[in-house]
């Protein structure tokens, strides 16, 4: 199989990368009608598989689960998940031939064997659905011509997909139709109905393409989302301990700090995150982030380049073929970092203190978000996609770190994201070595502690203007505006 993206002419590559549109709620007026009475068979019953299936069934759709014979025979967790929730469970041979829609919700690395196994069993004219386009775009899987291929990708962990649905909402969802496989022209209608069935239409749906989804998703997850937070955690922790700050305090400041500062990011973008700082601290964070951007820009470029030309996926698939040797080794290393091994101390840290004492963390988030966004858009990815895959998702990952630190974060994200995160981390740690030598506790751990919080007017105006005029802020303002109309009024 050849990398699908690389087989396309540049004109089409650019067209596909540039696809992303925030859909209007009126486009979902037909509800789940396009899927009503059809047989939906889910493959895989992990967090996404189970929770999406529960939502779809509660929306009145016919859902069952196809599992591998050994998962059924050995009563594995996936079998338990499905049967305890009262779903019909069967083998591929039992269920796939009856399916109108097959929902492939297995992990990325199983896609090739899974799709190869189910495709011959699928009935003429059925639909195959993905929640990530890696298999199509990077592995170049060819799907039978009579089959419709769509993607519906809720932009949150499976547990949240369910929890938000039960609350009467949903999570932001990306949908796409693989244009090479839309023989009956029904792909969009099916994808929309699926998004309604999981509740996604209540939180906002983005119409994208397989290619835009894959290339932006990979870039976001390995740089700002997971990589930057991992590298930042390790560097900030070690620096604080080196400077004599209580390790328990340092651990807590980082573990919960990312979540707190990116909550401000979620509500009001990079601007609001920096507005939470005092004026001198804001200018300090701005200067640090400018410095970081210069140092890290080549690394972001390299990640994006490797993703666009397929180097990243090729190297990772080599590791898959090598029994995940690198991945498992790096995972074990993460568990051994000092930050990971030091439990959060029993100290009270107020919401504002996370900002005041975490100026460097704010600078790192700003630098990472802006670099990822700039790099993605420079590579032809449209601003909407770039926004979702950088700024929008950062709080979600920060939230998993708050729950159980880096090891848990890496366990929650996909293997693909995890692999990319480690690649980033290994390159970024040495890259920031000199920079970190100049860092003191005034920007991480203790705060500026100024007698006089006065600043130069002209400089403050300059900084504020720079923050507010960044392109990620422009698109962010528009998209958050859409979301506020649709999502909960808080």
């Amino acid at each position, binding site marked *: 199989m050849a990398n699908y993206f690389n087989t396309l002419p540049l004109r089409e590559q650019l067209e596909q990368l540039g696809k992303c549109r925030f859909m209007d709620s009126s486009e979902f007026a037909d509800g*789940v009608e396009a899927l*009503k*009475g059809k047989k939906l068979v889910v493959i895989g019953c992990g967090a996404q598989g189970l929770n999406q299936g*529960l939502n779809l*069934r*509660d*929306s*009145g*759709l*016919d859902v069952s689960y196809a599992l591998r014979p050994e998962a059924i025979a050995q009563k594995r967790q996936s079998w338990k998940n499905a049967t*305890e*929730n*009262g*779903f019909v469970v069967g083998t591929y041979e039992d269920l796939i031939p009856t399916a109108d829609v097959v929902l492939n919700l297995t992990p990325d690395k199983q896609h090739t064997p899974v799709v190869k196994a189910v495709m011959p069993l699928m009935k003429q004219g059925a639909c195959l659905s993905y929640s990530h386009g890696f298999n199509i775009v990077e592995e170049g899987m060819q799907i039978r011509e009579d089959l419709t291929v769509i993607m519906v990708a809720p932009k949150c962990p499976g547990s949240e997909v369910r929890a938000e649905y*039960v*609350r*009467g*909402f949903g999570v932001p969802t990306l949908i796409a139709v693989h244009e090479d496989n839309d023989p009956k022209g029904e792909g969009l209608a099916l994808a929309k109905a699926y998004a309604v069935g999981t509740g996604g239409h*209540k939180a906002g749906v983005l119409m994208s393409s397989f290619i835009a989804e894959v290339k932006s998703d990979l870039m976001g997850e390995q740089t700002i989302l997971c990589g930057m937070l991992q590298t930042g955690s390790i560097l900030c922790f070690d620096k604080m301990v080196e400077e004599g700050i209580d390790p328990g305090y340092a651990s807590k400041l980082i573990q919960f700090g990312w979540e707190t500062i990116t909550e401000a990011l979620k509500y009001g973008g990079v601007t609001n995150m920096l507005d939470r700082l005092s004026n001198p601290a804001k200018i300090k964070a701005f200067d640090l982030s400018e410095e970081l951007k210069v140092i890290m820009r080549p690394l972001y470029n390299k990640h994006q380049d490797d993703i666009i030309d397929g180097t990243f996926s090729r190297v990772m698939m080599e590791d898959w073929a090598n029994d995940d040797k690198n991945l498992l080794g790096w995972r074990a290393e993460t568990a051994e970092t000092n930050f990971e091994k030091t439990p959060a101390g029993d100290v009270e840290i107020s919401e504002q203190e996370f900002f005041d004492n975490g100026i460097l963390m704010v600078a790192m988030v700003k630098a990472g978000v802006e670099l990822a966004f700039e790099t993605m858009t420079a590579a032809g990815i449209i601003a909407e996609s770039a926004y979702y895959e950088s700024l929008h998702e950062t709080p979600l990952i920060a939230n998993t770190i708050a729950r159980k630190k880096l090891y848990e974060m890496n366990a929650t994200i996909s293997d693909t994201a995890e692999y990319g995160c480690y690649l980033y981390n290994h390159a970024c740690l040495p890259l920031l070595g000199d920079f970190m030598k100049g860092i003191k506790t005034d920007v991480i751990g203790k705060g500026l502690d100024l007698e006089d919080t006065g600043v130069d007017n002209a400089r403050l105006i300059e900084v504020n203007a720079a923050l507010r005029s960044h392109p990620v802020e422009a698109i962010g303002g528009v998209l958050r505006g859409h979301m506020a109309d*649709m*999502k*909960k*009024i*808080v």
Partner: protein
Amino acid sequence: MNSSIHLNQLTVDFNEDFELNDIHWTIQANQHWVITGSNGSGKSALAALLAGIGDVKHGTITGLPKRPALVSFEAQAELIARELKKDDADILDVISEGTPVHEILFENCRDSDLANDLIQKFGLQTLQDRAFRKLSTGETRKVMLIRALCSQPDLLILDEPFDGLDADTLTMLQNHLASIVDSIPMVLVLNRFDEMPDFITHVAYMEKSHNDDHIDSGRLALTIDKQDKIAFEELAQLFHLKTTKLTIPGIDTANQLPELDPNQPLVKLTDITIKYGDTVIVDKLNWTIEKGQHWQLSGPNGSGKTGVLSLITGDHPQCYVNDIFVFGFQRGNGESIWQIKQFIGYVSTSLQWEYRVSTSCRNVIISGLHDSIGMYTKPSDKQKAIADQWLALLGMRDRADQPFNKLSYGDQRLLLIARAMVKHPPLLILDEPCLGLDDMNRQLVLALIEKICSGSETTVLYVNHHAEDKINGIENYLALKKS
């Protein structure tokens, strides 16, 4: 009164038709109390007890005042009866005029200057020579008050002293009471919270109690130090719920529920089974809930109460493998859970735990129209108005814009009940609605539920750990056993 009064585990009979039971109460020398509570809860009885009235059956009472003065309708009636009896007993063949007012006024008087002053102030100077029994009710009440105030009592007990007084007299009396707070301890029985004078230091709240021998009885449910602002506000709210006539706010006509077939039951569960792995929690249960049949479901922990409920609400995944008929839908035939949930109002402790969004109290109520936690559409003006009516009903109108998560636990529970009721659901499910609440908040929640049972079209399904914890108006019981 120099020492404190102690009432300990006291049970007292009053004329064999009312009983106060299990009274624990201490009144310190420097305190001024108000006794309040719903009708028939024994407020007057408790006040009278302090004046030595009643037949003590159990418990002890120490430190009772030696010279109490009691003004109450009962005492007033007794005095009038005494006067009428005098008339009857008169064997002389002359027309009796009865005892003149001034004689009654000065019967126990220890301060005639004060008496004359008050006679002026109450406007009784022209009536002094008239027969007491010829006075109007309001006038005899004033006479009673003057008698009591001038007797230099060691405890002044006034049962509804402000009832029927005109505004000027009311102000005069309140001012007078305020002027004697340092010399005479007072216990007032009041039916209205807003009449409570500033000098009151403590509040005793009475409740009707339920006993088996069909004698009306009451108990002292709560005592509150007025300094405790939160407890005082909660009591005011409880009082409001207990004493205000409840009118369920109207429905949002733009969001009306589909009609249900009146000939079909609301819920019909047939041979339902709930199991986790090999453990069977509920085994072949049959249960039909008809419209208007209020039910109480009880059972120990682990007997499957919440499981059965969530089969009805559609929250249990095993609802797709059981024979469940709800609101016209046989489950598992392409209906969505939102089509089911629209007919159900639901309140539970776990809902409260899940309801962590920082939305306003008003929006919490409106979210009941969407069966959502939090709001994702903008409320209409009509919806806001309905929510405000609910807030007023709960005595929380001033808190409409406050964030829900800043409310007390009990107030949150009340709001969630209003949220469940806002759409006038055919079925209201209350899953252990009092769990985790203190006594005051438990009273508040139960008061609201009783109002709903009696004052709406909604069928109530009340789930409680204890089968004996009953609500007036519920007559059907299902007890689950632990299997």
